[in-house]
């Protein structure tokens, strides 16, 4: 049995009130579906005494609109997106990613904004206070040592959100609101390589919307997730690809991989593959390139060597599925 620390829950009725509450209570955490925040609070991962609950905003921020591209409210639930016909038709990679998150109950509770802002995960942090104290804690909370990378100075807890690689591959952006105004940040600039806080989100800023550009609609895309069980588990690897083809030739490539370190990565240095025939050899080559740029760590309790060996295989299958 794990109890929550004493909490005062603030319940704003609008986005403006919500960001004002965040500003007025430094350190306050945002509560949407609670599927990530509540267990983490039970683990004693945050010192906050204030939550800003967004339940009152769910009418305002729970929409899927086609406006140029797609606009998705941050409080869309994961199962709502997994079942959404517009998403299935326009951005199947995102619909697939949503359909593979956790289990049915968690998908019903969890939100898109919450998944994008999911705290990083590591076998040394997602544990009870007692467990962590026995090990002298770690970099991410209460300690100074990293147990994953010897001598590591930067937290490498893994970005474990499934929507992030899918939306990265689709070149999506997020709209952030703070008391000072709002800004739209491309997702590829949203994540930071530091597991302590892996986004550019300011403490009083709220992610309110995801924007997918219309260019994503015509791309051949797919999402794939490696995990031990076919449900509930966080990813041991997750990948998404979006390809543009002209005839039988590759015109553009976007491949994102998650569950490695603090941020999901877009595979770079693959522009020379543009112009190649979109076939199995191309898929193999993309897999080899991706493997060179991805280093699975022991931050996830699935053998990193196996995950590394499997990566090119998964990329090949993913690309062939997208092209099929």
């Amino acid at each position: 049995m794990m109890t929550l620390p004493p909490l005062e829950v603030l319940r704003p009725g609008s986005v403006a009130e919500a960001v004002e509450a965040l500003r007025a209570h430094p350190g306050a955490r945002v509560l949407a579906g609670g599927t990530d925040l509540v267990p983490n609070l039970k683990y004693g991962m945050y010192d906050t005494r204030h939550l800003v609950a967004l339940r009152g905003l769910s009418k305002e921020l729970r929409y899927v609109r086609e406006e140029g591209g797609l606009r998705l409210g941050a409080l869309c639930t994961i199962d709502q997106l997994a079942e959404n016909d517009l998403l299935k038709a326009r951005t199947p990679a995102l619909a697939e990613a949503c359909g593979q998150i956790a289990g049915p109950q968690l998908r019903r509770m969890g939100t898109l904004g919450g998944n994008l802002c999911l705290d990083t995960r590591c076998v040394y942090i997602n544990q009870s206070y007692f467990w962590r104290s026995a090990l002298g804690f770690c970099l991410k909370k209460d300690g100074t040592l990293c147990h994953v990378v010897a001598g590591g100075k930067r937290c490498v807890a893994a970005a474990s959100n499934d929507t992030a690689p899918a939306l990265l591959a689709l070149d999506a952006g997020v709209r952030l609101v703070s008391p000072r105004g709002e800004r739209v940040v491309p997702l590829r600039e949203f994540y930071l390589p530091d597991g302590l806080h892996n986004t550019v989100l300011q403490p009083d800023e709220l992610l309110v919307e995801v924007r997918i550009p219309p260019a994503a609609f015509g791309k051949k895309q797919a999402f794939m997730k490696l995990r031990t069980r076919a449900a509930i588990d966080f990813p041991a690897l997750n990948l998404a690809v979006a390809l543009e083809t002209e005839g039988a030739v590759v015109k553009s490539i976007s491949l994102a991989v998650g569950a490695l370190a603090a941020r999901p990565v877009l595979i770079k240095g693959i522009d020379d593959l543009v112009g190649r025939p979109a076939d199995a050899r191309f898929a193999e080559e993309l897999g080899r390139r991706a493997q060179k740029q991805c280093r699975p760590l022991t931050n996830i309790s699935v053998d990193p060597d196996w995950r590394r060996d499997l990566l090119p295989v998964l990329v090949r299958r993913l690309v062939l599925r997208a092209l099929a």
Partner: protein
Amino acid sequence: MQLLHLFVNGEEHAVAAPGQRTLLEALRYDLMLTGSKQGCDKGDCGACTVLVRPRGDSGFRGEPILACITLAADAQDLEITTIEGLAGPLGLDPIQRAFADCGALQCGFCQPGMMLSARALLDKCDKPTLPQIQEALSGNLCRCTGYTKIYEAVEVAAGLRTPSSRAPVQSERAAASDSKAQTVTEIVP
């Protein structure tokens, strides 16, 4: 502390609780409805599953959510069904009867959550396929049975087959609410 109004199994309850009280704690320790189990207590195992629907909705009992990671205060605008509320005035729910007849339990800890997830499935889809059953129950962990008999029980409750055991446990006489589970003899592989 604040006064919370929870609508559970058709009754309104007032509970005084601090802001961090989870729905599961309120159910188990304030309302003494200990049927919802406290397993992992962090949203993995599904033992705390309850059904919820917006207040005032009629018809089905709602969708399964996890009570251990829901704040009790956030459940005030919901109608909650726990395992204690699954049986109707006419007796056991067909799901409950089928679980007993199929021996779909061993230690029984996962069963309240399993049966509520199964109920939510059958409310939406009265003749589910095996993959649909597996998907609907994929958020509920059972460490004893290997799931085979649980899936079978859902099929029995849906009237798709009879229990496979040669000498099924004869539960109490069929009540009106579960005639479906008792009368169907056709076996669909």
